[in-house]
């Protein structure tokens, strides 16, 4: 199933019209996230709060990025670019501003001028005035602000309610995939919370929906990755032996 999702993801950019993302009202998201968002995507000019920094933030930006949008990341020096790339973000259209400092509202406003999506972890809690000013900027430029944290005026809120890791036992195996329950609520017609189970990440690092009925079963087992890991460590130094054959 993971492979199917990956195919769908790779096909979607062409349907969405290449690199410019013409003036549509909604930026595309990964298929797995469509049900969670009003209008099935990121509403231009809106703020999405993702609770705290997690792979969910990357997943939210991935759909638009793979469709050609530029994504700026402010205040997140710890962002794992490899994970972002696996989730579907294009590293070639990524700007990283690790330390926006005290003038982060101005920095974000400037970034919104050029980038469709700005992923922000606010260094401090913005005052209502700063917040309203930024929201006006977002609406003017038609961008989307994804906040790794809380944002009072956010149109949509997503939260990882539950998570469980698969693939590892007591001294054997390795981390393979994480099943998370994402709960979304928002304002107006979208105020009824809805929850979905997602693979975040799936074994190949991508984002996929957990199929109904087979909940708990991992989409694909990649035996190849496992053997590579074991072989690699063996080659790295022959004098070391794996204590835990797993």
């Amino acid at each position, binding site marked *: 199933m993971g492979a199917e999702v990956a195919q769908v993801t790779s096909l979607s950019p062409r349907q969405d019209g290449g690199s410019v993302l013409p003036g549509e009202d909604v930026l595309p998201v990964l298929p797995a996230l469509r049900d969670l968002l009003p209008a099935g995507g990121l509403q231009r000019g809106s703020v999405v709060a993702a609770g705290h920094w997690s792979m969910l933030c990357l997943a939210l930006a991935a759909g638009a990025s793979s469709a050609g949008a530029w994504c700026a990341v402010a205040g997140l020096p710890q962002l794992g670019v490899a994970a972002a790339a696996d989730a579907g973000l294009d590293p*070639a259209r990524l700007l*990283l501003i690790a330390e926006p400092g005290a003038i982060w509202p101005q920095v974000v406003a*400037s970034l919104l001028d050029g980038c469709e999506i700005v992923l922000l972890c606010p260094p401090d809690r913005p005052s209502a005035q700063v917040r309203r000013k930024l929201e006006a900027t977002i609406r003017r430029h038609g961008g989307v602000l994804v906040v790794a944290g809380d944002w009072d005026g956010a149109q949509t809120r997503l939260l990882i309610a539950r998570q469980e*890791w698969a693939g590892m*036992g007591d*001294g054997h195996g390795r981390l393979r995939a*994480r099943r998370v329950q994402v709960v979304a609520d928002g304002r107006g017609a979208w105020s009824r919370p809805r929850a979905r189970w997602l693979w975040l990440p799936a074994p190949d690092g991508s984002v996929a929906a957990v199929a109904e009925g087979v909940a708990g079963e991992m989409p694909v087992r990649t035996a190849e990755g496992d053997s590579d890991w074991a072989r690699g460590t063996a080659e790295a130094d022959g004098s070391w032996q794996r204590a835990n054959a797993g």
Partner: protein
Amino acid sequence: MKAGGSAPRRVLVVWCPDWPEAAEDQEAGPGARAFEQVVSAVEAFCPRVEVIRPGVCAIGAAGPARYFGGEESLAGKLTGAIGGLGLACQTGIADGLFAAQLAAQARRPGAVVAPGGGAAFLAPQPVTALGSPELADLLPRLGITTLGEFAALPVAEAANQFGTEGVRAHRLARGLDPRPLAPRPPSADLSVSLEFDPPAEQSEPVAFAAKTLADQMHSRLAASGLACVRVQVQAVCEDGREITRLWRHDGLLSALAVAERVRWQLDGWRTGQRGRGEGGRGERGRGEGDQGDLGRAGGITLLRLTPDQLVRDVGRQLGLWGDAVISDRVARAAIRVQAMLGHGAVLCPVLAGGRSPAEQVALVPFGDAGTPLLPAGRLPAGRLPAGRPWPGKIPAPAPATVYPVPLSARVTDDSGATVTVTGRAQVSGRPARLWLWPSAAGGRSLAVTSWAGPWPVTERWWDPATSRRRARFQFVTEDEDAWLAVVQDGRWLIEASYD
């Protein structure tokens, strides 16, 4: 003044003996204009030409000499080219402008003074060559007739007896440069300007005109095969005030981008004016209504764009990554943020090779095509290639959080002892608790619910300076968070977490 000073660069001087020696203030006269054709001919060999005075000009010889097959050959070709204009000239090549000038005026045309031979060449020259009537009069009366004798005086004595002029002359006599070569722009009329009549009250029409001017400037530069490192934007107000600002160009800016910078410059200046005029009223949002009212400062009467620091155009850099062309809009946003936070604050990731998550990404400041910065303190120069097998690298899925500085940690077994890994990759006990930021007082600890490892890696065992032997573990803790930990020499670090 630099004491001693490094050896001057190789300089080639073209001297046209037929030209009348003119005083400095006549430089812009008819003589200078006629000399322009000689300078243009020299420019064909090297675009950075310094006109010493009408009749004498100089170029840095090192580069052109390499290109034209040696200094002798360069001198020959230059003489030939100027001879083709029907003008007689002599050339001289030496270390530094002074020696080169004397070499050019020497009896033997095309003289080349070998590198390092400047002082020896100068020693027998008469002191009149220093070009200072005072010294030429004074020194022979003191019994000093040649530059060699003058150079033999201690510097302090020369300074005492003859002042700053004496020090300058003394440096010349020793074969040192009194000042570095300052190339004049290849052609002064590369700058473009436009007058506004009536004066432009709004910044909008000025920015619009700037686009046309920038187009003109670019086509002129392109016609001479040049690019500019910086562009100087000069706006003159009705009341005579000037707003001048240098913008980095690097031959990369489009006409539209130059126009945008003109708008920023005017807007920035206007904001400053308003702030001063109204006692620092809070900055108003850049609403559509108040765009570009230049108001009481008086309108703009003249706009001039001057290319600065001309370099040979080696082609336009398009995208940094493959075919991706960075759109003007994104570049503008990135440059604005760089203007606020500094050049290195806006980074672009480039996937690189490596085993640990931090090594797999290199960060390059936006706009730089150079070698990416290696993640903190990695030793090998240059980026390690991606797409090669990296045995022992972390398997997918990749961690979403890679700590720029690994978190210090401690892993204990059921008995509370720190877990260690032996040389034969044996774990000393079952990891039971993960301590984050451990201290004497304890720190935060989480129960380990599942774990895997150790995965030993010995990196760069062939190089004692950078080799390291470490073992990696993955942990899932009671709150279902997953961690990538590494133990090296008994010290635990959290490299990444799977948030």
